[in-house]
């Protein structure tokens, strides 16, 4: 698969929203160590909200599908993560406004747009144990992949690899935002739950574009 058009994006969201709720307990436990343990439920409810919205998406272009998915997620599963995730998807979606398919070359810009949207909404900077700490390394990896002429599956694979590494690095960071921020140095040693969630989504994407490729 070299491009993700609207229909394929909807198909991907179908897979994603089917798979993510399975990580509920792991995310709940991680989030409980840093905060209130709701992230697993947030993801489960938010993913279901996207799933329920899928029927309304045919006819929309990919950018709008992303933006509406973010809004649907945060409508039903509003939370810190919900607001951040909605902002990320809306920013990424805006970046590809008018396009009828997402190509590998769009990916770095989309992820960068998501990162700056998130930073504007929540005021986080790199190294503060938020999803910024996976978005930025991922954007960098994608840039390198695109510069090297990688295929969409290869680029997605590399993005996931960068994510896994980045998540591991969040373990050593001290949280400054959200509930984790109240733990200060006690937050060190636990990976950032929101980043873990993003990483799981990227893994799902990489598998999707791989599986669908000829």
């Amino acid at each position, binding site marked *: 698969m070299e491009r993700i058009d609207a229909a394929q994006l909807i198909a991907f969201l179908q897979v994603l929203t089917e798979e993510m709720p399975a990580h509920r307990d792991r995310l*709940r436990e991680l989030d*409980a160590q840093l*905060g*209130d*343990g*709701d992230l*697993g*439920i*947030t993801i*489960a*409810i938010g993913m279901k909200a996207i799933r329920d919205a899928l029927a309304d998406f045919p006819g929309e272009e990919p950018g709008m599908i992303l933006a509406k998915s973010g809004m649907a997620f*945060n*409508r*039903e*599963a*509003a*939370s*810190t*993560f*919900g*607001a*951040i995730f909605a*902002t990320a998807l809306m920013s990424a979606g805006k970046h590809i406004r008018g396009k009828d398919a997402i190509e590998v070359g769009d990916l770095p810009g989309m992820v960068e747009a998501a990162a700056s949207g998130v930073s504007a*909404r*929540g005021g986080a900077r790199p190294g503060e144990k938020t999803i910024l700490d996976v978005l930025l390394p991922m954007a960098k990896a994608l840039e390198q992949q695109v510069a090297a002429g990688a295929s969409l599956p290869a680029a997605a694979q590399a993005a996931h690899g960068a994510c896994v590494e980045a998540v591991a690095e969040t373990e050593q960071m001290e949280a400054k*935002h*959200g*509930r984790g*921020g*109240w*733990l200060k140095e*006690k937050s060190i040693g636990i990976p950032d739950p929101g980043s873990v969630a993003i990483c799981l989504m990227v893994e799902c994407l990489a598998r999707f574009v791989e599986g669908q490729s000829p």
Partner: protein
Amino acid sequence: MKKLINDPFEFVDETIEGVLLAHRDHFQRCEGSKRALMRADGPVEGKVAIVTGGGSGHIPVFLGYVGPGLCDAASIGNVFSSPSPDDMLAATVAAHGGAGVLHLYGNYSGDRMNFGMAAEMAEMEDVEVKTVLVRDDVVSAPVEEMDRRRAVAGLFFAYKIAGARAEEGATLGEVAEAAEAAAVNTRSMGVALTSCTIPAAGEPTFQIGEDEMELGMGIHGEQGLRRGKIMPADAVVDEMLEHILADLPFEAGDEVAVLVNSLGATPPEELYIMYRRAHAVLGQAGIGIHRAFIGEYATSLEMAGASISLLRLDADLKRLLDAEAYSPLLPRAHA
């Protein structure tokens, strides 16, 4: 998980349904939202509207603070999770009586981001919005970083003060000022003995030993100051007040309102035992008690534990605290 509930995912909507059925004369839904309620007699023309909101599971926070002399509307989210910006916007627009809206809520990032989005949208609809955040939990960040502190039961004082000021006919700026005065003069600290269980999670949020307590825990189970063996109530109160008094600091000659709040399972008897000690400690410190509030003012589902909040009073705050207010979900002795 031992609960009298049906489908855990219907928990919030069924709660709201019950509240609406039980208190038909008091509440109405805000147009366009299942998760936002307002005063039955709202919007109150010409009065500054106070809109609050946050996660479910804390009754009387948030719905219980909607009423004359309190807030005008509240939007509530899933258990311990922020409401959506759509619901907050619905509450804001519905409650707006033409004199602007104060967003008054606890300093949690989810609520802040979502209320932020709602405020942006409200302003596009020509509703003037000001925001005041309650941040009373002394253990959640050092005093120099007050703006990172989270809110606990001190919300009560902010609602009571701001609500009374709005009822007096004050402008949006004046109401926000009163709310901020309540916020900066309130200090709280809690102690948890057991975890609660989020219905949809089905398991306790945290584990805690049969003989342990956690001092300073937040109302969603956020880690506190220290985990330790359960101590006698007097020692717990002493340690809590030590942190609270030193923080503002409260000083001899000050006059305060005291709130001893149950997190849910802790019975009133224990709150009164704690109040008894707090009364003695404050007396010893030369701090006068203007009024005491004892009961469930901000809960964490069925968590066992309690919190103490102090509001330092001046003449204005005293007048506003003593003003009439009413909500069917609040303990009687709130005004």
